[in-house]
């Protein structure tokens, strides 16, 4: 073996060590994070999911910088995360590891996280401001008497309808499920379908149907959605008429199908209202999901995003103070966040009342529907329960017997709930 090759081998080794060291350095710095302010003693990591609206990422960074300006000791490293479908999975994985965020968003609040000791109670930072919050939100975030999260925006989901198309077909917005089925059928002509509730033809409709029949998903420590077999069975009619739009390019939470006239009615959120207004002017209205029959009630779904503090964070107090500053005290920021990037409702009633964008036209109607008819998911609801429930509803839409199918899914959900309540 020549000395030449021996040396080049050593050179190779050195180079590879340099490479390994280099990539270790590169990986240990957070590529998504923003630069923390110099001189801060504490840096909080705050996770957001990826909002679709333009300007949202810059906005949350701006809020964080304003906090550091007012409190130079604390910097906030905003991490802009995955879209809604992947965000919770990634967050859950991160919460198990060492690099967990101090503050994070939750789409659906999970009481299980509080019971498992993953969330920090926030009662002390709410203080007397608690009374000013939407009561439904407080109920939703309370687990065993303590508040574990802070709503940053409330989302109201409603039925959008095209006034001109309804007028042409000679129909009015439906007030019962039977009317909804008929109206959707009347409105289906040529390239336009009557109703869009999701690409799978299911979307959130099983929840809405159950609630509109006056039934709940969970009552105390019992899963009870099989009581709603009658209304969920209605999915079969909706599907056999071929009046629901299926397989569009964007899903129900995007107004695309409605603004492009692929559907005359669409279930969508208040967030899409500015887009719809821009595309259709005043040729649209909003209504709640109709009552199932005269014994039922009209409903709308209440969603939104909640921020919570990681119970294992090393900087719990700083994190809580920051949340208090941002989502209780900074009402201007709250209004900016709620209506400048799609429409949402600020969770503090007084703030919502003085948000100009929400006090006129269809937005005002939608907010009123949310207040009057809004229902949230139960906090004990999990993704497994959701998957089982939606799968049962999808089977029913294809013709499975409603009672039997729902009871089977309900039994599985009950065993999940029993485990959760421990």
């Amino acid at each position, binding site marked *: *073996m020549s*000395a*030449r090759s*021996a*040396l080049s*081998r050593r050179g190779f*080794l050195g180079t590879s060590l340099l490479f*390994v060291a280099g990539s270790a350095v590169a990986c240990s710095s957070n590529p998504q994070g923003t630069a923390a302010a110099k001189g801060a003693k504490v840096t909080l990591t705050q996770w957001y999911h990826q909002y679709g609206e333009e300007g949202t990422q810059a906005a949350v960074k701006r809020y964080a910088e304003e906090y550091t300006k007012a409190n130079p000791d604390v910097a906030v490293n905003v991490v802009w995360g995955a*879209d*809604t*479908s992947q965000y*919770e*999975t990634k967050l*859950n*994985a991160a919460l*198990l590891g060492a690099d967990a965020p101090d503050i994070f968003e939750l789409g659906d609040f999970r009481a*299980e*996280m509080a019971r*498992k000791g*993953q969330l920090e109670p926030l009662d002390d930072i709410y203080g007397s401001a608690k009374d000013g919050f939407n009561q439904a939100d407080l109920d939703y975030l309370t687990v065993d008497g303590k508040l574990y999260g802070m709503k940053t925006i409330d989302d109201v989901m409603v039925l959008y309808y095209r006034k001109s198309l309804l007028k042409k077909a000679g129909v009015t917005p439906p007030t019962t499920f039977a009317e909804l089925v008929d109206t959707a059928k009347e409105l289906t002509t040529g*390239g336009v379908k009557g109703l869009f509730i*999701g*690409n*799978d*033809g*299911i*979307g959130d409709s099983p929840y809405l149907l159950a609630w509109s029949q006056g039934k709940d998903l969970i009552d105390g420590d019992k899963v009870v959605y099989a009581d709603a077999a009658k209304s969920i069975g209605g999915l079969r009619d909706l599907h056999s008429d071929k009046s629901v*739009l*299926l*397989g*569009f*390019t964007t*899903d129900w*939470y995007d107004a695309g199908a409605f603004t492009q006239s*692929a559907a005359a009615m669409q279930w969508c959120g208040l967030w899409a209202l500015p887009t719809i207004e821009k595309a259709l002017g005043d040729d649209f209205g909003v209504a709640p999901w109709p009552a199932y029959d005269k014994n039922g009630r009209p409903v709308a779904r209440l969603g939104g995003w909640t921020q919570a503090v990681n119970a294992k964070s090393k900087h719990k107090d700083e994190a809580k103070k920051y949340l208090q500053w941002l989502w209780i005290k900074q009402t201007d920021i709250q209004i900016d966040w709620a209506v400048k990037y799609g429409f949402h409702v600020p969770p503090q009633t007084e703030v919502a009342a003085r948000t100009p964008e929400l006090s006129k036209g269809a937005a005002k109607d939608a907010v009123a529907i949310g207040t009057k008819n809004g229902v949230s998911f139960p906090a004990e609801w*999990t*993704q*497994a329960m*959701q*998957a*089982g*429930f*939606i*799968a049962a*509803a*999808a089977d029913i839409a*294809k013709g499975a017997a409603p009672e039997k199918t729902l009871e*089977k899914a309900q039994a*599985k959900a009950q065993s999940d709930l029993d*485990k*959760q309540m421990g």
Partner: protein
Amino acid sequence: MTVTGTRPLDKTRPAPVTATRRRRLTERQSKAFAFVVLTAPMLIGLGVFRYVAIGWSFLLSFSEARRTISLGNWVGFDNYRQLLSDERFRDSLTMIVLFTALIVPVTFAASLGLAVLVNRVKRGRAFFRTAFLLPAAVSYVAAAMIWKMALFSGVPSGLANTLGALFGVDPTPWIQTTSPPLYWIVLVTLRLWLQVGLYMILFIAGLQAIPPHLYEAAALDGAGPWRTFRSVTFPMLRSTSVAILLLMLIAALQAFDEFYAIFSTGASLGSEPVRTPLMHLYGVALQDQDYGVGSAGAFLLTLLIVLVTLLQGRILGFSRAGDKD
């Protein structure tokens, strides 16, 4: 470019001290040293990121682990029992076995047929080879998005519906139509498009290793093309075929990407007409945070794959030494 003062020639001349020290190491030792240095990072990486993880997951499968990955809350075989009593998981197992039984022969026939055809082309063989292989470089998710949103979307402007309109067929929601189950057209075409090219390349390699004199002999004996394929080509491809079959079986049993990407509705799973075991386990472990049951499922699926592989080995034999003569 960086210019250093030392000339390359100077570097190659070892300093005397190094030379004496080097002489103490025998060639054998230095080879062993090089082996250790070069393989250690890979082995350590495999050990830490694969085998420790697999071992941990095995222990988790006997432990109750909701929203945690720490061990200690042992529950014996409860996780396995719970999973096997779950009808949705059992359905997914049945589905994947049927799916494998159908997709593997189809993929096998398609890639072998394509390999034979491309191998017979006299001009532009490289072009065809590349053209058919290219889809293998596309990510499953990206391809699934194209299939879902452009080719088989439910709107009249989707490619399939545009073609259908030429023949007077009404726009069809391909992915959402369950009777008849049109979504299989979407899933199968997508999988074939992505996979056939790669297996075709493997078959071509096998075909080119067949000695031409066998074909000459067959031609002299008056064998037609079909007889030549049956009696020369196919038997000579035995070890290639067995290896490819094995790869296909494993790929089919582990199906996840395109099923998930085609059927996920953005918010969550649930309404998909068929789900693979991995989709179910993704929901259990990663969405619902039940790592115990999720790990149990991973080992059940591994067991299924091992059984199928052993069964295949039993019937067809793993590549036999007899091929060489």
